[in-house]
């Protein structure tokens, strides 16, 4: 029983990490048709921003309120990176989807190389607040607290995103843009502002994933975003592109399948099952779980 609880909560924690990355990817793809390969870079910016702030920013540190200030700095850096990428690099290329993908690919390669040039390719020890290092007993299982941190953060982001999308005017524009961008523009609404907005949201969420992922893994490397990004892509495709609730369901599914399969069979089988799950979903429902016909 305790093993199952531990596995379930760890799987949920992993799913939370995937959701934080996938929600932004999904919104960006759904609204702007940009398959963002630079998303791993946003994640790395958030992780390194948090790590740097914890060591250098006055008032920030590895514990207590200082830790949250460091995370806030990382998230702000990620959002800023998202806005800059959209304004400078993506905006001139709208309606040319292949070129946009290529630019984000180049940006991802160059950005990660730049981080490696500045801070080296060796893992950097990440600040971990003392309470995150402890464990909590749940139904007889000793669960590390960082899992709860990830799950809580993802739940907050999910609720905030849904509230933004369903209750605000800009959220309405974003949702309408995902459905039919040309119609929104024809109605005289400046849909490009919404593009910048989803890049900022996506960058911030990915940066949060980077900061909390740093706590979860205990260290940060320039290439960390890369492997997480691939699973986030899988989550986006399974969940249905452009759907935030779809991403949430798919992220939980992928996280749980990966953890349980890895524990009960062997290392690597979990990842294999996730790929099989993707193949099965695509063959049965090519538009993903949320089922928007593209």
């Amino acid at each position, binding site marked *: 029983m305790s093993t199952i609880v531990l596995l379930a909560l760890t799987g949920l924690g992993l799913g939370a990490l995937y959701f934080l990355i996938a929600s932004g990817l999904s919104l960006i793809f759904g609204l702007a048709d940009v*398959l963002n390969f630079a998303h791993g870079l946003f994640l790395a910016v958030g992780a390194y921003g948090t790590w740097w702030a914890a060591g250098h920013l006055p008032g920030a540190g590895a514990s207590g309120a200082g830790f949250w200030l460091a995370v806030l700095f990382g998230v702000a850096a990620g959002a800023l990176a998202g806005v800059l990428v959209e304004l400078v690099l993506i905006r001139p290329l709208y309606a040319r989807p*292949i070129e946009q993908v*290529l630019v984000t690919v180049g940006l991802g390669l*160059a950005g990660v190389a730049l981080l490696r*040039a500045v801070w080296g390719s060796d893992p950097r020890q990440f600040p971990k607040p003392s309470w995150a290092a402890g464990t909590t007993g749940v139904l007889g299982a000793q669960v590390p607290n960082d899992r709860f941190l990830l799950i809580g953060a993802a739940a907050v982001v999910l609720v905030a995103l849904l509230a933004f999308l369903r209750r605000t005017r800009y959220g309405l524009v974003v949702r309408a843009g995902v459905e039919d961008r040309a119609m929104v523009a024809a109605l005289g609404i400046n849909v490009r502002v919404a593009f910048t907005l989803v890049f900022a949201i996506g960058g911030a969420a990915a940066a949060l994933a980077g900061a909390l992922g740093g706590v979860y893994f205990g260290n940060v490397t320039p290439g960390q975003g890369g492997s997480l990004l691939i699973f986030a892509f899988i989550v986006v495709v399974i969940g249905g592109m452009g759907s935030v609730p779809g991403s949430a369901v798919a992220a939980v599914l992928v996280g749980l399948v990966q953890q349980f399969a890895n524990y009960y069979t062997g290392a690597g089988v979990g990842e294999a099952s996730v*790929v099989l799950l993707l*193949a099965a979903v695509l063959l049965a429902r090519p538009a993903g779980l949320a089922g928007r016909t593209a």
Partner: protein
Amino acid sequence: MNARTTTRTLARRGAPLLLALVLLAVPYSTLDVPVLLPGPLNSPGTLQLIAVCLLFAGFALSYDLLFGRTGLLSFGHALYIAVGSYTTNIAVTRGGWSLGAALALTAAVGLVLPAVIGAVALRVNGIAFAMVTLAVAQLGSIIVLSDPDGRTGGEEGLALGGAGVPAFLSGVANTVNLYWLALGYAALVALAIAWSVASEPGRVWAAIRENERRVTVLGLPVLRFRLMAYVLASLLATLGGAVHLLVMGGSTPQITTSDFTLGLLVMVVLGGAGSRWGAILGGVLYTFLDHRLAALGTSGAVADLPAVLRAPLSEPLFLLGALFVLAVYFLPGGLAGLAGRLRPARDGAP
């Protein structure tokens, strides 16, 4: 037909011949280009560098068959290069097979595996296809890294060894034979692709790239033609993986990563997708810069620069990524397209 067109036809026919002659002469020349090359042309270091460049030109050509010729954006091409390298390596080093038998096995795998994967992945289009190929290649990468039964060597990679490796393909003194091998591979891929895109299916591939719906309306089985291109490109990549193994003397998990496929994409776009020389040019240039920029990064000229400039310049991938982004904006059609755009201006007539 005027004199100018005949000159151009001559250049078109003559250029490959001239290039072949130059490449055939390389191992017999002692020409030394100080900064660009690590030593005289026929020194092992330079021959190895040129061999790797030719090898990657072949890889880029095989990727261009998918991306530039058929319009299939795959993020999993590295899988087949890795399959070629690891299958041959495991059969020879772990299984004690002869090289010929291992190559036959590799060719069979290189035919069956893409047929199976392609049959499933090609049922979806566009971005979803890209994602499925990415996921499948990631699976391959995970399998190689997890080192099943100690066969792949995990993160360490697997050095080529065993009785099956012929003596003329190992050792620094025999680098020239590896050069011939890489040259032969690049020529094989170039000929196979030139022949296939000129064939009847090749014309259908171009039609699918331009307007898939129209091909469907004409009553042609799009899936079958795509699968044909996918299997051919993957088979060429698998064979290239075996050559890569021999040239490098082993298999490393780096060739299984998605970054490796992204590198191929960068080569093809930089050189010019869907053109005769683009992929070759991009592959050679990218590989050359990737190897020589690292040497440049540690050279005296760069070491004297302030730290702000020195750090990015010591990372070849940063420069290549930045170059690639610039090429997407300012060089549509890549380097090959640049030549095409300059020509009408020079001739003064369309």
